Every structure is written in structure tokens, then in C-alpha cells.
């Protein structure tokens, strides 16, 4: 385990029952059916006796006085002068913050970003700073809508800045507002938002939901352009990131760290603020989703029955509206500010404290119940490409050491995988699915033959800049995110998915979990070892 974060004033936590750590359960005959998330719904599955189930730890204690903790972090940063000392009248101050992809699900108001930004703005006002810009650091993600911005930064900040054009979305395709800062020693171009590059101080407000987030990646990715991003968002990098959740074995992070150094050497001053959350993911009445099945109360069971039978009667659209309205009760467990690398080391330890679960040995087959949400379908549709990315990109990579599934093993995903796309948010995904995946599913081929034509497409660029569309190249990144898994595993099976869509992804459809397990035997042989990842809440397997 990592060393505990040093105690500082304002960081007292709410004391209660000590959270139980995550653990591995071996299924025996008395084990109740196991909950599988299944898009906008759930399944209860009986896993074969001898299977293992990895449970996340319970929510760790949260900060008793978050506002005070934030203020303390700003006044006593690590490796840098206190924020007030860095603020002076007439300076250019830019506050960048994480976009709508964090946290998941969106959190109840007030959002952490609002709390942090208000604190920073208070100090800036005290110091007489009047040139402040707020930028949603969304890289090639879709622009945030007014409602989403209001949710993230709060109405007070929004109304004070947005009408004057001082609160806006980063535009990675605006040649007039990007600056080429330099090149890394490997020749990677480092291009970021011009306003950020020209500021006297850039304050970056992070929500570190998983260990991938934060560090140099915040600025080098969040405020950069396609020209810069393509150096680490590619198949080669992803195949050499094992995993991209483990900074020290991640080529993705190495590249971002090289870029971070270029930015630092160019004189960009970044005041990094990183925050961590507990894994309290689901509000009532869905809180049973984060309980262990044998501890479900009579009320939990009723809630489950009511939810599933109600959901059965709803259309996909209604279910989606219901689920997307969920606001998570998760709260802040820590906040650190200051110099990027020092801050990030502390944050990562804090994330691991909540998420790391030791698991011994890999399995032939890993099963995953995929939920309704991924970073890229907030207020949107989880289309088949995002299903693949959530399972093989995110869940598969939530490991340290080695993957939960052995090389040549089978991953079984459970998700309805409908052939549905959001026409505004994911236009290039539709064409990627209809044209590219219909041709080949090999990430290397796809990158070689198709990436440029989508990335440089005028229409996608227009949609990204003026509407709410992900960048034309974004579906490619989703597919590259799967590259490590696709290289590692022998087969992918999706339970309960639209067979047409599943086959288009290059995977095999199965109607039930027993069918899928039987199909898996074709690849891994008879009586395979099976491990189920009981997420969300998210956890990270520390596989020995």
C-alpha cells in the first residue's frame, strides 16, 4: 500500500464505521445470485461454483469540512508558494477545469469544481486580479452545454463570467487560439490553448476519479489539440500502456509527462489542484447496487424487484432519461494543490486507498456487467463503440501488475449494446460504425487507413466547434483504447446485446451468461477459471 497522505489542518475526516476493504469471494453453493450491471438495467446471474468475484472496498471516509480543506490546500500547497502569493493585480489568470466526463455519474450539487473554483476566485478577488478566464478543458470531447457548465461551476460563477465570454469551452480546432509551445525530445508537438499558454498562472482543477486522471495529463491533454494529442492517443501507445491506469507502466503517461516538461521549461506556471472522491456511486433507492448481495435487506430486494420490473416496461429512451438523471452522492476524500508531480503522487495514493483490491492470479475468463454510463455518454447514448471501450478500454485496464484475464483468455461483457447513436453528440461514431468497422476491426489497419480522413474532416470539425459533437477522430480513440485488450484476449463475448451490433464490433453475441461461458470454452478449454468484476463502484485490481 502507498504511504498515507500527511495530515494537514482542515483534513479531518468524518469518523464512522471503518470501511471494509475490497476482497475476492469464492462462489460456493450458498452464494446468492450476483448482480451484473446491464446498461440501463441489471441482471442477477448465478456464477459456477468455484468462480471468484472481486468486490470493491466500501466508501472511505470523506472530509468533514470540504470548503476549509480546499482553502487550506490553496494556502499550503505542496512544492509551490501559497496561491495568494502567486496572485497579483494586472496578471492573466486562467482556470481550467475537467469537463463533463468527470465524475461518473455526475455528482450532486455543489460540484467539487464549483467549490474549488469559488475558492480560487475569492483569493483572486482579494489579490485584485481582474483578468480571469475559465476554460472547460475538454480536449476533443464535445462542448459542454450551458446546463452542464452551470452544474459544474455553479450558477454564480456562470452568470458572472459566461455572459462576458470569460467562461467557455476549449476549442482544439481554433487555429487562432492555440499555441505551439515546443517539441519533446522525441519530436512530439506540444500545442495548447493560447490563453492558457500566455497566462501568468494556470490553475487546473481536477477530479481524479481514477488513477489515470491528473498529473501532467491534465494540461497536456485537456487543453491541447489533435496535432499534439495524436502522439499519445494512438494504437502503439495504448498497446504499450500496461495499463494506462498505472502511471509508471503507461506509455500514455510517459508521453504526457514529456509534454509536461516542455510546458514547464517554456515557463508555463501551473497551479495544480487535484481532488479525490469516495466511491459512493448510487443514491437511494439504487444504493443496493453498491452493497454485497448477501447483505441486501428486504427493502433492497424490493427496490431491486421494483426497479427491474419497472425498467422492463420502459422504452430505451425513457430508461436512458431516468438513469442519466442520477446524481451520485459521492463526496470529497481529499484535495491537494501545488506542483504537478508532487500533487499527483499524493492524489494517486489517495485514489489507490479507495480503489485498490489485491487479487492473486489471473483467470481464464473475466465477466463484467457494464453500466449505463461511460465518460463519453453523459446525457447521451452508450453506443456500441462506447460499450466496447468501457469494457475493453476502461474496465479491462483497471489493473496494476497484470490483467485480471490471462493472455488468450476470454472477456464476457453484459450489456444490451443497442444499435443506437446520439445524432448530435456522436456523428462521427455513426460513420465509423457504418463504414470503418464494417470494413475492419483491426486497430492498426483502422489507424493507418481511416484516421486522417476523419480527423481532418471539415464537417466533423464544424460539428465539434459549433454544435455538441465529439471530434471526428474520437471514435478512433475509443477503438485504440481497446487495442491492448484486443491484443491480449482470445475472444470477446457480449451477453444480451443486439447480435448485429455485436458482430459489427467483431465480438460474439450470446443470449445468456451460461451460453457465453460455454462459448468461452471453445477458446480457453473445459472448466475455465472465472472471475467476475463486481463494478461499479469502480475498483482497481492489484493482480499478483
Amino acid at each position, binding site marked *: 500500500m502507498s504511504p498515507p497522505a500527511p495530515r494537514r489542518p482542515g483534513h479531518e475526516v468524518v469518523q464512522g464505521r471503518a470501511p471494509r476493504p475490497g476482497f475476492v469471494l469464492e462462489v460456493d453453493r450458498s452464494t446468492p445470485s450476483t448482480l451484473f450491471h446491464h446498461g440501463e438495467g441489471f441482471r442477477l446471474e448465478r456464477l459456477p461454483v468455484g468462480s471468484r468475484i472481486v468486490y470493491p472496498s466500501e466508501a472511505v471516509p470523506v472530509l468533514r469540512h470540504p470548503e476549509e480543506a480546499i482553502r487550506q490546500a490553496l494556502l499550503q500547497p505542496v512544492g509551490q508558494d501559497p496561491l495568494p502569493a502567486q496572485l497579483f493585480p494586472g496578471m492573466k489568470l486562467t482556470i481550467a477545469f475537467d469537463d463533463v466526463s468527470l465524475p461518473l455519474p455526475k455528482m450532486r450539487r455543489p460540484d467539487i469544481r464549483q467549490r474549488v473554483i469559488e475558492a480560487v476566485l475569492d483569493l483572486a478577488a482579494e489579490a485584485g486580479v481582474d483578468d480571469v478566464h475559465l476554460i472547460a478543458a475538454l480536449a476533443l470531447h464535445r462542448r459542454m452545454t450551458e446546463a452542464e457548465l452551470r452544474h459544474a461551476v455553479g450558477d454564480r460563477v456562470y452568470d458572472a463570467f459566461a455572459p462576458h465570454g470569460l467562461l467557455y469551452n476549449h476549442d482544439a480546432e481554433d487555429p487562432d487560439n492555440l499555441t505551439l509551445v515546443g517539441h519533446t525530445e522525441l519530436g512530439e508537438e506540444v500545442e495548447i490553448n493560447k490563453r492558457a499558454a500566455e497566462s501568468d498562472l494556470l490553475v487546473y482543477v481536477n477530479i481524479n476519479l481514477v488513477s489515470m486522471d491528473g498529473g501532467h495529463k491534465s494540461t497536456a491533454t485537456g487543453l491541447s489539440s489533435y496535432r499534439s494529442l495524436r502522439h499519445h492517443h494512438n494504437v502503439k501507445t495504448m498497446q504499450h500502456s500496461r495499463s494506462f491506469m498505472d502511471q509508471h507502466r503507461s506509455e500514455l503517461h510517459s508521453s504526457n509527462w514529456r509534454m509536461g516538461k516542455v510546458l514547464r521549461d517554456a515557463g508555463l506556471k501551473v497551479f495544480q489542484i487535484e481532488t479525490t472522491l469516495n466511491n459512493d456511486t448510487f443514491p437511494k433507492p439504487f444504493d443496493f447496487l453498491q452493497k454485497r448481495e448477501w447483505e441486501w435487506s428486504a427493502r433492497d430486494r424490493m427496490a431491486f424487484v421494483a426497479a427491474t420490473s419497472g425498467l422492463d416496461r420502459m422504452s430505451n*429512451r425513457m430508461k436512458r432519461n431516468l438513469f442519466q438523471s442520477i446524481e451520485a452522492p459521492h463526496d470529497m476524500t481529499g484535495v491537494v494543490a501545488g506542483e504537478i508531480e508532487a500533487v499527483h503522487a499524493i492524489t494517486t495514493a489517495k485514489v489507490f486507498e479507495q480503489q485498490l483490491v489485491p487479487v492473486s492470479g489471473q483467470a481464464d475468463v473475466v465477466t463484467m456487467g457494464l453500466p449505463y454510463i461511460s465518460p463519453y455518454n453523459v446525457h447521451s447514448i452508450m453506443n456500441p463503440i462506447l460499450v466496447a471501450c468501457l469494457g475493453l478500454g476502461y474496465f479491462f485496464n483497471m489493473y496494476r501488475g497484470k490483467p485480471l484475464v490471462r493472455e488468450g483468455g476470454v472477456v464476457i461483457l453484459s450489456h444490451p449494446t443497442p444499435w*443506437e*447513436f446520439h445524432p448530435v453528440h456522436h*456523428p462521427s461514431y455513426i460513420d465509423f460504425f457504418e463504414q470503418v468497422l464494417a470494413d475492419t476491426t483491426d486497430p492498426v489497419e483502422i489507424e493507418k487507413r481511416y484516421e486522417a480522413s476523419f480527423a481532418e474532416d471539415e464537417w466533423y470539425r*464544424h460539428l465539434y466547434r*459549433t454544435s455538441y459533437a465529439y471530434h471526428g477522430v474520437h471514435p478512433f480513440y475509443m477503438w485504440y483504447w481497446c487495442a491492448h485488450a484486443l491484443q491480449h484476449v482470445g475472444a470477446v463475448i457480449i451477453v444480451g446485446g443486439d447480435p448485429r451490433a455485436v458482430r459489427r464490433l467483431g465480438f460474439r453475441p450470446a443470449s445468456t451468461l451460461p451460453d457465453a461461458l460455454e462459448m468461452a470454452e471453445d477458446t480457453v478449454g473445459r472448466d475455465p477459471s472465472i472471475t467476475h468484476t463486481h463494478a461499479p463502484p469502480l475498483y482497481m485490481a492489484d493482480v499478483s
Partner: protein
Amino acid sequence: MIADALDGKRILITGTTGFLGTALLERLLRCVPGCEVVLLVRPGRRTTAVQRVAREVLRNDAFDRLRSELGTDGYAAMTTRRVQVVGGDVGTDGLGLDDEGRATLATCDVVIHSAATVAFDSPLDSAVEVNLLGPMRVAEAIRAAGSPAHLVAVSTCYVAGNRRGRAPELPVFDQPFTPDVSWRAEVAAARRTRADIEADSRTPSRLRGFAKDARRELGAAGTPLLASKAEKLRDAWVSDQLVEAGRARSRSLGWPDAYAYTKALGERALLETRDQVPVTIVRPSIIESALSEPSPGWIRGFRMAEPVIISYAQGLLKEFPGIPEGVVDVIPVDIVVAATIDAAARRPEPDAVPEVVQVASGSANPLRYRRLVEMVQQWFSEHPLYDARGQPIVVPAWSFPGRGRVANQLERASKLIDLGEKALSALPLRGTQARWSASLEERKVDVDRAATYVELYGAYAETEASFSVDRLLQRWATLDDADRTTFCFDPKVIDWERYVTTIHLPSVVAHARVKTTPGASNRQSRSVRLRAQVLAPERHLAAFDLENTLIASNVVESYSFLATRRLDRADRARYALKTLVEAPSLLALDRRDRGDFLRSFYRRYEGAPVDQLAEDAQELFSQLILTKSFPAGFRRVREHRALGHRTVLITGALDIVVERNLAPLFDDIVCARMSRTPDGRRWSGELTDAPPTGEARAMAMADYAGREGLDLAEAVAYADSASDLPMLEAVGFPVAVNPETRLSAIARKRGWLVETWDRSPGGPRALLPIGTSTRPTSFRRDVPGGIGLTT
């Protein structure tokens, strides 16, 4: 020897573009090597007579045998040496010959007149001009040219009319039971009938009717297109009336149809006026595919029995009237050809009475109707046709009912379908549903066609006349063995079983382009082929309509969105209610005239602030246009661009709505443009130009193509409704997208590519086209100035 008798002779033939004429020419060229041939051919609308002969006659597969015997070059040399073409028309006096033509005619030794309008349902006047007056005009032209030619006139056995019993080889009017009719009076009456019907078709009430029908068929397609459609309908009506007049007149005189009636009077006119011209009349019965010459089964065009047989094999003709023990008098074309050449070779003695030769099978070698039906049924049971889903079609068993019963059944079916069609066309259907409606229409066409067959050909299956062939057989008896081999015209040589099952039916099926192999429909591959044509690199322009072609939305929704975006909740509800109430009248106006609708609707923008609308239009792009877009449609636009085609959007939508938002997709956007108030800060609600609707779209496209030096024949246009017809018709490659009922039917008929594009599955669906504001209530109150839109 026939060949010797015709050696060194010049033979003029009329009607070589027809079935019998082509076969005649072929046989003369092949079997009478010493003769020369002159072809009298009517020049086409854009082609000369020589070109028509080259294209429509000499390239026919009848000449394959000659071509392979002589080689391609030898064949060309031979036809150049022996075939001369003169332009002319048997439908006009003097045959429309020029001096050179008349000089050529003067040198001819034989004239074989086989030109006729053979359709049983030709309009009365054209049948009269060609069939009745044609032979007489030919004889007159021969006399006028001072030609010594012997005229062999091809007539038909059915000039005998609906009689029972023996029909001898005598001039019709020398036979008993023939009504004494003056051909001159009939000609005058027919011409008067044409004039009367033409006059009737131009009365105001009729013209209103045609205009109404045109509108029903095309919708709001714009004045020029509606006018030309109405004129076409008027023409068709006149023609129908004349067909009806011909049918009625012939029946009143005892002939089955206008064809037999005009042919009979044509014989009479010829014999009365021929003067010294030597004449022989050859009367074939129903001419069908060749027994052996030039090749077994050779046939040209889709003739009388073929459509009936194919309709039967497709299961469309469930019943066909006829007398089971009656005789179907069919005669293979090569037998008719041989008998005609034989007649040409026998120049009558001067002053001899013209002879009539009947070429028929009924009396010498009868084929009973029941036997024929059995053979056909048996054959199609063994060699079925397949339906669109690749399933074999089971042929019905005929019970030989009377003609009246079948006609009644078909009429009932037609009426029922008519009703269904009316009901469907009243509904606002699109895409797949519209296709049901179109298929219903197709079904009606099938039923109507079956009814026509029964009406037309029923009489021939019920004929109880027996055409005697004594003279034919006498002539046959005089031939030596060599002629008998080369010019066989003995009807007794036909083995009906062999002829029907191994020669005729396979040939009919091969010519009918029907599905003869099992397996899935080839419709899929057809649209794939059409799509490949549309996306070929040679195309260079693709024009798109917007509403329902690229997005499932319209100008009313755009307006509603813009008008309500800044309203508070109560006002929005009021607006929604008001729009719902107005909807029917708006729709009705739109249906009447799209241009008027747009003009009056856009007035509502009067006074709207320019800046605010520009800002809102960008939000509208995401919330309305993209949300309701057809991703496959946008993809198609981009495919065209990727191929280097120019893409143009032609829409009645407003510039503020489409221009900035869709700019990267199109090279050019033609849309409705609104002017501003003098201070430039508000919209005036008035358009600067006529909005591009109906024919204005076609004009806009033609202008654009002209400016850019592009050829519309190589252009593609995408649209969804019949009101876009002018635009679709103007280009070489029209594509109907999610067509509504009328366009669906038109696209099917014309073989256009039909695309069904849908909104992204799972995408957001708004119940009402109301702008969704994202502002919280507290903020909304702060918006100064309200919306400035009059609602």
C-alpha cells in the same frame, strides 16, 4: 423455282421494322440471292430512315445466321449492295415519297406491303389511316410512279369477323354475311370522331378535370409540370376515347376489334381503287415465333399471346375465357414469310382477278384451345417462374368460363384496389408505408392489364371461324422439292406439341425478362447497382433537398423553435396550443402551393431581432437540425464531396437557419432569403426573391449547372416529394428519398433509386417542436426585451 422467279428483281417492302417485315427481309436476303430490296421506312423523330434501318432492323438477331455465314464485313458489304432505304410513311397520301423515292418505286417489280398498326387497341383514326387507307395509298403510289410492280398486300384472316364456320379465301365483301359498309364513309366518320373528341377534350369542364387529376398525381409540382402533365392526360384521354370508339364501331359491324375492321375495309378500298395494279392479298392468322427460320423460336417484340402467357405464368391471370374445343389459329412466322415470298414470285396475269391466300393452321392442322392450355400449364409446372422472394409461382388451372364472368371478376378487383388506393393516398405516408401504397398501385396495373387482355384477346380464343387454306395448299402442291425445303409454307408440318413446348414457350420466357431461377430477389442488387451509378466518379453535381430528405423537420418547426426559445413556460404552452390549432390550415396551404405557403409563413419573422436569431439559430442547429437529421443522408452528401462532386442544397428553408449551419457540407446553398428593416437590426418578414420551390428549384439547379459549366445529364438529385419532381426530372440520376406515396409510385415506375434514410435510432425525440431553453427559471426573467417575435 421461287428464287429464279425473283432473280434480278427489285422488291420494295413496307413495315420492315415490324415482326413479319424483319423476317421477310431476312429470308429474301438469305434465300433469294439475286434480288435487291428497297425498304420504305418512316423516319423517326430524331433519326433518319437509314439510321432506323441500321439500328432497328439490320442489327436484329434474325440476321445472326447471315452474319455468321458471311462474316461481319461480308454481311455489311452485302446489305450495302442489296438494300436501299427510302423514307416515307404509309399513313400519308403519296406515301410521303420525294422525287427520288418515287423514281425508286418506279423501278420496283414487287411491293410487299406489311406495314400496319397491329395493336388491337389502336385509336380508331390511326388504325383507319394506316390499316384502311395504307394499302390503297401504296397502290396509288405504284400507279402514280408508273411502276409495273405487283402488290402483295398482307392482311389478316380475321377480316372474316366473328363468324362461325368456314371462311373462304375470297375478298371479304364478296362473302355472304358481311355487312355492306362504305369505306369512304367510315374514313370520313373516323376523322370526324377524332375532331369531335379533340373538341370535347378542350371543354372547360374536361380541362378542369385533367388539371385536377394532374394535381392528384403530382401534388404541388409547380405550374409547368402540372400543365404538361394535364396535357399528357388530355392526350391519353383522347386516345382512350378513340380506342373505345374504334372498338364500338367494329363490334357494331361484327368485327372483334378495330384492327380486323380496318383491315377488312382496307382490302375493300384496295380492290376498289387498284385500277391496273396487279394485287395479291396474303392473310395470315395469329403470327407467332418461328418454327425453324431464321432460327427456331425467333420472335420480335412482345406480341399478342406472349403477354397473356407470361401473365398466366406469373399467376396474375387467374382465368381466361375461351371455348375449350375451339381452335386457336396460330401460325409460325416463317411459314407466313415463305407463303408471302411465294406470292411475290407469282405475278398475276394481266387482268386477272386478285387472288387471296390465307396462311392459317386451323383447318389443315388445328390446335385446340384445351390442348394449348394443357401444354402451357404442364410446361410452367415443370419450368415455373419465380416471385420476388425467389419462390416458384404455381400456375392456376383455367376453367374456361365465359368472357363476361372473367371481365366482371376483374372489374370488381380493380374497383376494390382503387378504393384502397384512394384511402392510402389520403394519408401522409412516407418510406416503407408509401411503398405499400405503390405496390397496391402496381397490383392495380396488373389487374387492369389482365382485364385488357381478356377484353382484347378473349375474342380470339373464342373464334369459331375456320379459315380455309385451299389456295395455299394448291400453291404448295406446285412447288418442287428444292422450294419446299427453302420456302416451307405447309401448315401441316407443324408438330404442335414440339412447337409449343420446345420452341415457343422457351422463346417467350427468354424474351419476357422474368425471373426463371430460384433464390432471393434481385431488387437488392438493383439498388446497389443504381447506388454505384449515383456515386460514380463521372457524376459531378449532387443537388439535395433538405426537409425529409436530409432532416425530418420543416420550416414550421424551425420557426417554432426560434419563436419559443426565449419564452417562459406559460407562453410556450400557449404557443404550442396555437400552433396545433393552426396546423391543418398550414398543411392545406402547403399542399396547394409551396411558394405561397413559405411567403405567408415567413411573414411571421417580421420584426425579429437579427442578432438574437443568429445566436438562436446556432442552438437550433444542434437541437433541431442535427437531432432530426438522417445520418445516412449527411454521409451521402459527404461521399459525393469526397468523390469531388459539387454538392448543392436547394431548399425553401431560410438562410439564417441553414446557411451557416450547413455550409461545410455544400459548395453552394440555394435557399429563401429574407430582407432586413432599414436599420438592419430586424428581419422584415419578406423574401428578397421567389423561394426555390417546384419548378423554381429545377431552374435554380439549371442556372447553377449552366454557370459552373456542368451537364445536368450527369447530375444527381435527391428529394422526397412529388413537388420536387421538376428538380428530379431535370437530372440524369434522380434519387427518391423516403418518398411519399405519389413519388414512391413515380420512382418505381421510372426505375429510380429509392433510399430510405431514417433518424439515428435511439436519438432524442421531442414531443413538440418547441425550443428548449437551458436557463433556470430565475435567469430567464433577466433576459431583457423578450423575444420580439410576433406569434
